[in-house]
């Protein structure tokens, strides 16, 4: 009985091996050829042109998603670039010796005729108050807006800008705009 079962299992295995092309058996090979033919004939009936176009669209949408489908090499490049940026920024901050750090004017935001200058400071309120009083002493109208981490000075410049005002601003490396008001934002960077 057990011998029959064993024989049957061997026959099944041999049949399957021949079916999948791993062993020779004329009978199973003929069947195999028919199965392959059936597979190809049925596949040929399917039109997948539209399916491919749809998939292309879906892939491009996937490609557009952040954090997905990024080649591992590019991940390393991106990481290296980020590290360089962090190290570079830290070096610049250290070289400034902890004094107020100024954003360059060409990077300043200019909107609706107003130039904005950001100054990183460990004592924003104190520095803002100092600048406000010095500008006011020169007859410049200044509005101060305090908030938790920053102090904004909205400076209403009169054109042409007087030499005294120009010197005062340039002493703090604040470029004088060509026109419009100037907003100087003192941001707390002590944390």
């Amino acid at each position: 009985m057990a011998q029959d079962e064993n024989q049957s299992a061997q026959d099944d295995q041999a049949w399957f091996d021949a079916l999948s092309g791993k062993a020779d058996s004329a009978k199973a090979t003929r069947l195999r050829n028919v199965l392959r033919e059936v597979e190809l004939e049925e596949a040929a009936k399917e039109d997948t042109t539209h399916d491919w176009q749809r998939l292309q669209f879906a892939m491009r949408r996937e490609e557009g998603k952040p954090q997905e489908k990024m080649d591992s090499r590019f991940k390393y490049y991106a990481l290296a670039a980020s590290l360089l940026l962090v190290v570079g920024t830290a070096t610049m901050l250290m070289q400034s010796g902890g004094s107020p750090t100024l954003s360059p004017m060409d990077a300043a935001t200019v909107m609706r005729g107003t130039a904005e200058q950001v100054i990183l400071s460990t004592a924003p309120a104190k520095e803002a108050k100092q600048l406000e009083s010095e500008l006011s002493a020169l007859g410049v109208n200044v509005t101060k807006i305090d908030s938790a981490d920053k102090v904004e000075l909205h400076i209403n410049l009169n054109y042409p800008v007087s030499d005294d005002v120009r010197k005062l601003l340039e002493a703090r490396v604040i470029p004088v705009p060509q026109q419009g008001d100037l907003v100087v934002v003192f941001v707390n960077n002590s944390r």
Partner: protein
Amino acid sequence: MRTFQKSFLASKEARVSGVDPNECLRRVTMGGKVAEQGMEQLFKLYASRIKAFFRHHRMSDEEAADLLQETFIKVYRSADKFEGNSKVSTWIWTIARNCMLDYLRTKKSHESLDELQDEGGTVEALVTQGHEDHLHIQDCVQRGFIAFAKSFPDRAHAMRLAAFEGWDMDELAGFLSRTPAATREYISQCRKKLTPYLEHCREWLEA
């Protein structure tokens, strides 16, 4: 050892189609235009057959198209997770089958795959349907197998894939999500169930 196995499997698949699916999959992991080219090759190799597979399991045109999309999006998303322990064909077909099973579980909970497998119908009626006279013997086998496929679509497809992809028992077990022992029994049953459908062609098959 693993590298050898991977390259062996890859070269074997490449010989079958002229395209190396492993290389296609590697391209897919690169992203951008190269990935799209890799996907296009894989799509050409498998899409039509996968779509036919869904139809065989009574999926409508729309369902088959949606499942095909789902399958290839999963291939695209998880290409970098393919470790090369199996053939690419086994991996892709398993994804396709799982997509269909998930769909059946959620959308057609009233039907199970087992129900889809056994439609019944008498062997005589199905095999002799529409051709009484002189059939070419190859047609005889083809008709017999198509009749078998109507009654046992899942078994018929497993056999077709084994024949077409050259899968061994373990690869088929992976595709079917069965243990090797259960797969051996499955194969044995396939053989037994197929026999009456090919009875008419016995002489030709044994010649």
